């Protein structure tokens, strides 16, 4: 079976761990608990006739004081770059995270998630400005979470 390493990258407190929890366990916890280092989860999925095991790296969030160590990025086939759609600075930093990921994995694929969309009004959601291919997600409500991981898996396996 094919095993693919994917990363969740982004600033701290954007909901990377929550997206994984929603995707793997279909659960959500409102309490913010910082991630330190990395935690790996696994998920089997089929894309067409291809069976794949995603090795999902929940990487500790970047802070103004600490960049994500390169050792975590090595060998990744893809990444979900996450921002909090309510925190401007996390969206500004998306470009930096993408650049960092692509520098280590030039052939790596990525998708951008604008998480916590449940906090936006319907009007805000409708007019939300995103990078091409970006997805508004809500780990709390489960909106577009499976689609997010599925899109990346397809990209990687295509």
């Amino acid at each position, binding site marked *: 079976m094919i095993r693919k390493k994917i990363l969740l990258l982004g600033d701290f*407190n954007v909901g990377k761990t929550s997206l994984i929890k929603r995707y793997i366990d279909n659960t959500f916890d409102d309490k913010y608990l*910082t991630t*330190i280092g990395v935690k790996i989860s696994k998920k089997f999925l089929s894309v067409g006739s291809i069976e794949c095991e995603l090795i999902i790296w929940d990487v500790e969030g970047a802070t103004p004081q600490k960049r994500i160590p390169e050792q975590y990025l090595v*060998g990744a086939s893809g990444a979900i770059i996450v921002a909090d759609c309510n925190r401007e600075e996390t969206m500004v930093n998306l470009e930096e995270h993408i650049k960092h990921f692509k520098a280590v994995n030039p052939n790596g694929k990525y998708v951008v998630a604008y998480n916590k969309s449940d906090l936006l009004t319907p009007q805000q959601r409708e007019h939300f400005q995103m990078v091409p291919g970006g997805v508004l997600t809500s780990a709390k409500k489960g909106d577009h979470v499976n689609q997010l991981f599925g899109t990346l898996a397809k990209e990687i396996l295509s």
Partner: protein
Amino acid sequence: MKNIQIILNAILSQDVFEYILIDRAYRITDFSENITRYFGKNVHRDDDIRDYLPEIVGYEDRIETVLEDEKNRYVLETVYKNDYYINIHLEHYSKDKVLILLHNTTEITLSKLELLQYSNDNQLLFNTIKKILDSQDNLLVVTSNNKIEYANKKFLEYFSLKSLDELKERNENNFSITSLPVRSFDALYEYAKEEEKELTIGEDTFLVKATLLEKTYKLFTFSKITKLCDMNRALEEKINRDPLTGLYRKSYFDEKLAEALEYDQSVTLVIADIDNFKAINDRYGHLVGDKVLKESADLIGSQLRDNDLFARWGGEEFLILFKCSKQEKIVEKIEKIREMVDTHVFDGAGHLTVSFGVATSKENDTVYSLLERADKALYLAKKKGKNMVVVG
């Protein structure tokens, strides 16, 4: 030998290492007894290491390099495994085997996690507070020992600063670059600590309030009130002006005259009265009368300087205040004005004249006493036949 040395050193330093040996095909060939605690299940020889350590997925190229050269080694730090935090070391063991050392760092990582959680919570709080402060219309600045520690977005924008760092870097005593018309923030604090005070910066007016946050930290709030001041000034002008002639009203004139006398300024007061004005109203109507009043005000006003105060007392009477005691010169000027009116042809009313009463201030004069003397002089001018200047 080197690897054994690492294990020994770890034991001696009370670090806890477990190990696994794998071959080129990622098959487990050997492992230490307690390794299972990191996986939550029993480990078997010949199993694929990636079933236990999926962290290895993506690291295959690096494992190849470790096999090739004993100098190559990698470490993957702070990996969460089955309630433990571990560092995963990839070490050369032989040309066919890689030694994986799992170093338990749970205790120290949990301490770090506590600090990181605290730091991130504070960072979130700081970001929220910063957003609140940046959303304010007021200019906010926090100082410590007379130097700027924090300034909100509005403050930076107002003084055309790109960032707070720029503000901090520009000048050791960064007060001066803000062009605030005070010596220092400490001086500003003394000025505005009790209540909001007005402060002019360039063409803008601000209300500044200083608050002591802690012993050395001070918060200054600058509320821009330029528009409000302009509106007040416009309103004051409207209140103080006579709508027909555009001249100041008597109440405003009295206020300024009182101020001048209070500060012992020598002034000369002139009362002007249009002769036989009632007849103009009776003969040509009130609309023409109003036009005559306006034209008279314009005519007299055209001969006055900006700092001469010109007002309408009421009816057909005008007041002029000269902040000057050289009576002869003023009389000369008034005489010219009188002559000018005398030769002017008023629209709809033709020829008319004006009488003037002049009085120069003396020591201990009041508004009333000065007005009284000028009024008496005007009375004499009228009595003597009008169209003349009389000094009281």
